């Protein structure tokens, strides 16, 4: 069986590293070489060369061509070693995937091709079945987490909006004799505009997240003066954030990247949360919560000197509702008089006590998130699908005599959203009609 398209993806772990490896496989590898490099590559020779897209040098890279069948997949393959970091590898992958003959690979596809071409033996191939399954699910979960801040929830909410519009329209089409108390066409137009606006917003957010986030985002939260900035600096090992004893110093969110056991982390220092009437501080608190929403991991810091307050309880309750990993940490144990346990980890940022344990806990949480190299691929796929959804809904025109065409555009919109979410409930348009309208002539 011959594959017709050429696939591309990142082969090294995602995130910041010294070098990133990008792999292409398929019949059009030569087209890619001609398109992005100024000269041909020799078989199995590493060449130092510029990767050029639309006359811009994206990066100077090492490129190696493996002519099929002497390659991992058995097809023509190209490996590009570029400078590490999401921006560079993402740009290169997108450039390659943008040509007609190529696309981003699905999880497990390289192995699959290797098997089809007889490069992997039977026992290995049979193992792929289970791996691909778990890979797909894990990667999808991971991608959702990576795009957290309620990404799934946001897609689900748009999906529901679209479904509601479809239910109205399909009911009008399939049950014309029923006196369905449907929204008027103008109302539907309004609903469609709202759906478009939500899609727009989500697309923008997703772009922002994709660029920023090939690393785990960890946010430090706590009341003012709990020692968040001290901890932030201690973890970073330099003075990225001002540490000041006056309450409410870090009004804006400050972030920096660090590397923990090889895993890239974006660490966010936030404004202290407390009840206040100061508009600037209120804004600071709001931003702190948004940062928490967008984070993959929340580190909540108690002030060991003062003990757990009512405010602490409220805030912890609130962030627990965000349903993401939380580490509860008590700071200033050196100043603590009473022995009471608020957090699971006890530290003193000032005296550098318990920091190694905290780092270990953070690493464990990251490991639990099961991130892998498929994440960024899937994220890009999700972004593409969101855009496709938007194109489809934008193309529709709500008028009675073309209601069937509007229904078609909405169906396409929904298909894109369903692809992101993975599974569609069967029969839900009809179910929606039957539960919302009294049908039955």
């Amino acid at each position, binding site marked *: *069986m011959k594959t017709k398209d050429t696939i591309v993806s990142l082969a090294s772990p995602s995130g910041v590293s010294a070098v990133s490896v990008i792999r292409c496989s398929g019949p059009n590898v030569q087209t890619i070489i001609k398109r992005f490099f100024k000269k041909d590559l020799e078989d199995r020779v590493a060449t130092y060369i510029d990767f050029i897209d639309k006359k811009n040098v994206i990066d100077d890279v090492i490129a190696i061509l493996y002519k099929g069948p002497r390659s991992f997949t058995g097809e023509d393959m190209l490996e590009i070693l570029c400078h590490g970091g999401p921006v560079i590898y993402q740009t290169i992958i997108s450039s390659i995937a943008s040509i007609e003959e190529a696309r981003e690979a*699905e999880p*497990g596809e390289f192995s*699959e091709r290797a*098997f*089809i071409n*007889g490069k992997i033996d*039977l026992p290995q*191939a*049979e193992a*792929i*079945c*289970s791996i*691909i*399954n*778990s890979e*797909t*699910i894990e990667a999808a979960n991971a991608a959702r987490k990576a795009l957290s801040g309620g990404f799934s929830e946001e897609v689900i909410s748009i999906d529901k909006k679209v479904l509601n519009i479809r239910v109205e329209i*399909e009911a*009008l*089409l*399939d*049950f*014309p*004799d*029923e*006196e369905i108390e449907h929204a008027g066409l103008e109302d539907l137009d309004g609903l469609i505009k709202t759906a478009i606006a939500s899609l727009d917003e989500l697309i923008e957010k997703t772009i922002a997240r994709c660029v920023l986030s090939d690393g785990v985002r960890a946010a430090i939260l706590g009341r003012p003066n709990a020692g968040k900035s001290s901890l932030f600096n201690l973890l970073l090992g330099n003075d990225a954030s001002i540490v000041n004893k006056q309450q409410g110093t870090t009004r804006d969110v400050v972030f920096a990247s660090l590397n923990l056991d090889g895993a890239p982390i974006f660490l966010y220092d936030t404004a202290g949360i407390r009840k206040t009437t100061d508009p600037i501080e209120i804004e600071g608190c709001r931003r702190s919560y948004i940062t928490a929403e967008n984070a993959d991991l929340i580190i909540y810091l108690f002030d060991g000197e003062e003990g757990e307050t009512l405010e602490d309880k409220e805030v912890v309750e609130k962030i627990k509702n965000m349903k993401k990993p939380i580490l509860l940490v008590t700071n200033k144990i050196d100043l603590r008089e009473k022995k009471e346990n608020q957090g699971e980890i006890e530290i003193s940022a000032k005296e550098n006590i318990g920091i190694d344990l905290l780092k270990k806990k953070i690493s464990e949480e990251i490991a639990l998130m099961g991130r892998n190299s498929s994440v960024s691929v899937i994220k890009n796929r999700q972004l593409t699908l969101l855009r496709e959804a938007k194109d489809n809904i934008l193309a529709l*025109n709500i*008028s*009675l*005599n*073309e*209601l*069937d*065409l509007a*229904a*078609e555009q909405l169906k396409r919109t929904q298909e894109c959203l369903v692809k992101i979410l*993975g*599974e569609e409930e*069967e029969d839900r*348009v*009809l*179910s929606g009609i*039957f539960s919302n309208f*009294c*049908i*039955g*002539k």
Partner: protein
Amino acid sequence: MKNYDVIVIGGGHAGTEACLASARCGCKTLLITQRFETIGQMSCNPSIGGIGKGHLAKEVDALGGAMARAADLSGIHFRTLNKRKGPAVWATRAQADRELYKKAIQGVVRRQKNLDVCESEVIDILVDKKNVCHGVELETKEKISSKAVILTTGTFLSGKIFIGEKSFEAGRDGDKASNKLAKRLRDLGLPLGRLKTGTPPRLDGRTIDFSVLKEQPGDDLRPVFSFFSNLKDHPRQISCYIGRTNNQTHEVIRDSLNKSPAFNGVITGKGPRYCPSIEDKVTRFKDKESHQIFLEPEGLNTNIVYPNGISTSLPEEDQERFIRTIPGLTNVKIEKFGYAVEYDFLDPRGLSSFLENKAIENLFLAGQINGTTGYEEAASQGIAAGINAAQKALGREMWTPERETSYIGVMIDDLINQGAPEPYRMFTSRAENRLYLREDNVIQRLSSCAEKYGLLEDNKLENVKTYQKNIEKELGRLKGTKIEIDDQIISAYEYLRRPNTNYEDIEKIKNDFASVEPQEIGIKCAIEIKYEGYVKRQKQDIQKSQRDYRIELPEEIDYSKITALSTEARENLSRIRPKTLLQASKISGITPASLSILKIQAKVNKNNKKVSEKNARS
């Protein structure tokens, strides 16, 4: 022993189309029904067509079936539903005179060559040790052999009727139930399920005060059902009327709910969500103060009126009480009370796409026995089963109606893959390809199939071919006609692509353009042009999504051993054993992730085979 190519059991809408199709294919065919008199009987509401259903009836017509033509000969009230919406969802509906409809169908059956009718009851299906069906046994103990048998027994299998707290065994409308056959099917190990449906009381029109009801006349621009009919075939036209329930009605119904078998737990079968009883409507939509009732006359020479929208199984006295609260019906006389009926059906997931039973060869099933509801759904399965049983008997390749080209295909594909969790009725939203599956292009969609199986008589086939040539010719003319609009010169074809344009306007824009005769051809061309882009895109999408779907799943796959699949997926795959990835994708419990597993598994099995063949050679 008597001997036929094909035997059809049951003379309802599925059975008649099945035996007619089989006979037209050239097979010696026998129809066995309890009473000839009931052939063509409309046992529920006296109408043909509607959304999705009009499409089905027209597809049956394009395949040479009898239903649409009979609707024209008996229709007393015609409408095109959705006329103000897009042409893809235009749907023809006709109110029929029951007697005229029956007469029309019975006439076709009588005239059909190669077809015998026998009034009897079948008590057994003859199946040999290899699970091949080879005939039937009648109640007289007479055995008749055949190469194929089509079972279309509707709701006759262990049918049970409920009115209030009374219940009794019965088939349709007072006919007897076929219990022996039901028992035999159970003994053969075919999986049976139970469904329910209901029917409203029938009213004496002489006791209705129509003056307080809203009149609903048929369309001025009256549609014709069959491609082979014209307006002159229609009998005299009359109006329908619309009445409304009120709070008082609902109160009466609520008070007697505990006597409704569907509510006190006596009936366990699942009823259709789209056709709830009035008890259901009142309970589920408490806020609604009034429900519509369509009062549909059952014919020109009868006083019976069918009140569509109030199917009920309340006790007789309560039916009378609630109906008489409705303005216009305050003195109404009930001719026959409404009832709920519970019946057995055979899980259609046990069928192939040819409607042949997977466990018993040469046994075909069609109609309500497969869990569907509606005359049109029954008729279209009937015609498919008839064509295929005939092909089987003739030793030729059978026909799989495709989802992409017909509603018949959509329905059969849904049934064999998803089963019938509730009585299955057609809706246009079930079709992915709705913009192509239109009433106006039904001839283009199905004529090649009709021709291939010889379903149309010579003169009809001639008509169809001339018509298609005319369409092609007109499309060509529109491409060549230049018109000036908004200072631009474009072809009439391009003009018709634009939104809110229509064929009739071309004459106004261009003086020397004359509409084609008949103008209907031009209007159909305009619709064709309008949808062309969308249809093309749908086709591409389907092809794209089917690239992988064409992958065949080898027979020898042991699904129970693929642990990466969910238990539900494993069970369903083992039972249904899909032939391709496409079929697998439609099975419940199959996620995109499980499809990629199946894809790999298919390749693994293929490679396994190669390796073992290689080893065997060396």
